[in-house]
């Protein structure tokens, strides 16, 4: 809003975005020092980065949707690249893996802590370093990176701001690697007595597969980042072919001989598994919330687990579906189209199992459940629209248009973000001992739900029309974009309203923390260990008073045998 007013009042002047970006950072610092344990620490950091990413995004939307020079193309490109990077690497991953994983996972498997607490801290600090560096790159003379989050060479090698992006990415990747080592070790080694593999809550499985993806897919990008850094700083030519002429000038410092496509391969070898890193923990959260609020066991737990493992494995061999149009020949296109179609099957299995889990339940529509339920069709839309992209011929028309933007935002925004919100509402009593207000929660949900769709569904139409992504003016100059430019306005307005509907959420958080009433240890009457065996909020050291023992699978709801409709994992089944 402030931005719009600015635009109306001083159309010629750049917006004071530094002020906008500084406010949440200051808030972040304050929050940071108030936080106590590392779980909340990380969650706060993740939150703040998401908030900042979101914020920055509103400037961009202001730009695309309202032409007339709110900002220069270089700044728009910076915002685009930074929005993608911040949301993916500094927002979702730390929040869903770093925060939820770190906090919930040891509790769910009955462990006193992560296997390597010191490593955990190291990973956190390296992450913070990378994150701060990334954000501060806005303040550098050349501005922040401008080549998209994909940083395709040679553009990335020759445009300003990229060096800092690369260095921070190296930090962030290192942090993720350390985190992944810790997670896997924790899950394998620290499961409590009786916690066999098939008794693990699904969330833990999701985290395990995610960690493997982090562990094995991130290093190639680290290598690639080092190589690109060398290209920039030492004028090597790993990604620079011979004979480049930039604006009439021959680039003499490069001897050439490199391959721009190599960067894309190394990048997507990471970035495709990365998208499953974004979605798997979200699916884990949704599964927890659905099992709990439908008051019955997850349907097809085994198939969920196998599908997830298979998905993780397959995600390593589909990456070049982002590169169909780089001139891929028939053989490899056949290969990647086939693997891409194959990888859609486990997703369908997972979603189906979650749907069917609802059948026969006694469904409680509280806020976490609403977010979790909304996740299903929203992810469904996102996932289904991945199919035409995965078929190379139809990708010809859709590649790099707003259809792609629509596709992945449906999976990450009303998908992952909704799941994370479900997680926040669900585990908030665990972290603080207080329950978030339901009324405010419902307002938050319905507002977000309506406007999320308002933001992202028009993008499919723009995509069909062939409007390219990453256009500073949103397509104003293109004839073929004309009929659908009016949608930009609708998208912008929805996005602002979406933002406004986050206010009840923030109020809810603050208000509950300050004034909320304490609730019991197991408000949701859940079966998993974090609720049934540990106090809420958990004791500062060691999580549990004594080692809990597990007697049965994770979701024993609606058994008739004991008086309640749930049997905690650490309570033997009767009869």
């Amino acid at each position, binding site marked *: 809003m402030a931005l719009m007013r600015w635009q109306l009042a001083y159309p010629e002047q750049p917006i004071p975005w530094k002020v906008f970006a500084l406010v949440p950072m200051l808030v972040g610092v304050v929050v940071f020092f108030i936080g106590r344990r590392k779980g909340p620490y990380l969650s706060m950091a993740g939150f703040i980065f998401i908030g900042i990413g979101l914020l920055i995004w509103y400037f961009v939307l202001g730009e695309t949707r309202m032409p007339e020079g709110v900002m220069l193309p270089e700044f728009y490109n910076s915002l685009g690249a930074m929005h993608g990077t911040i949301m993916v690497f500094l927002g979702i991953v730390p929040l869903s893996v770093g925060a939820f994983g770190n906090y919930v996972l040891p509790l769910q498997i009955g462990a006193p802590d992560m296997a390597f607490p010191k490593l955990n801290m190291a990973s956190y600090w390296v992450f913070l370093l990378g994150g701060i560096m990334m954000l501060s790159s806005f303040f550098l003379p050349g501005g922040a990176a401008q080549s998209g989050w994909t940083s395709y060479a040679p553009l990335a090698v020759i445009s300003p701001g990229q060096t800092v992006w690369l260095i921070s990415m190296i930090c962030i990747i290192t942090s993720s690697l350390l985190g992944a080592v810790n997670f896997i070790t924790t899950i*394998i080694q620290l499961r409590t007595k009786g916690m066999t593999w098939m008794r693990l809550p699904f969330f833990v499985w999701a985290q395990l597969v995610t960690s*493997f993806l982090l562990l*094995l897919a991130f290093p*190639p990008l680290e290598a690639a980042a080092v190589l690109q850094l060398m290209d920039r700083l030492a004028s090597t030519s790993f990604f620079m072919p011979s004979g480049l002429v930039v604006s009439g000038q021959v680039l003499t410092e490069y001897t050439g001989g490199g*391959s721009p*496509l*190599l960067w894309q*391969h*190394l990048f997507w*070898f990471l970035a495709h598994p990365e998208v499953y890193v974004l979605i798997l923990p979200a699916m884990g959260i949704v599964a927890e919330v659905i099992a709990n609020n439908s008051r019955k066991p997850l349907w097809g737990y085994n198939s969920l687990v196998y599908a997830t493992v298979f998905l993780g494995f397959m995600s*390593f*061999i589909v990456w*070049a579906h982002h*590169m169909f149009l*780089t*001139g*891929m*020949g*028939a*053989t*490899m296109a056949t*290969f990647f189209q086939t693997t891409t179609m194959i990888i859609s099957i486990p997703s369908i299995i997972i979603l189906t199992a979650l749907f069917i889990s609802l059948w026969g339940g006694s469904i409680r529509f509280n806020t976490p459940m609403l977010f979790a339920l909304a996740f299903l069709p929203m992810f469904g839309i996102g996932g289904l629209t991945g199919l035409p992209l995965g078929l190379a011929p139809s990708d010809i028309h859709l590649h790099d248009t707003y259809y792609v933007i629509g596709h992945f935002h449906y999976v990450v925004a009303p998908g992952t973000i909704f799941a994370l919100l479900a997680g926040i509402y669900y585990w908030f009593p665990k972290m603080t001992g207080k329950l978030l207000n339901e009324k405010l929660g419902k307002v938050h949900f319905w507002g977000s739900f309506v406007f999320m769709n308002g933001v992202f569904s028009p993008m499919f139409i723009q995509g069909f029309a062939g409007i390219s992504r990453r256009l500073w003016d949103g397509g104003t100059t293109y004839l073929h974009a004309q009929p659908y430019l009016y949608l930009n306005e609708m998208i912008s307005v929805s996005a602002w309203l979406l933002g406004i509907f986050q206010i009840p959420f923030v109020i809810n958080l603050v208000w509950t923390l300050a004034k909320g009433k304490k609730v019991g240890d197991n408000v949701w009457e859940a079966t998993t260990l974090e609720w049934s065996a540990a106090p809420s909020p958990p004791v500062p050291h060691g999580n549990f008073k004594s080692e809990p023992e597990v007697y049965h699978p994770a979701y024993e709801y609606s058994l008739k045998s004991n008086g309640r409709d749930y049997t905690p994992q650490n309570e033997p089944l009767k009869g």
Partner: protein
Amino acid sequence: MENTDVQEVKRHIRVYLYTFSALAVLTVVTVAAASLNVAVGTGIFIAMVIATVKGTLVAGNFMHLFSEKKLVYLVLIITVFLFFVMLCIILSTINDQVLSVS
């Protein structure tokens, strides 16, 4: 390797020394083989075979992989497999590039 007694360790030390000699000899062999004038392909093949043998010796004996648990094998097999996937698929995709003949 935990709880091995002193005798056991002494036996290990002998293995380490054998391994060392093998590695040293193989290093010399590689260098010697490289100075033979074989075709590039063959040269790469020989060098990689020797390097793999040396690598196996280091991993197997110094890193005790030969007597390691299943779990570690599992992790390593997945990793090595994915490495080959990365290498082979990147190579074959880049070689399956549509190009104009000029």
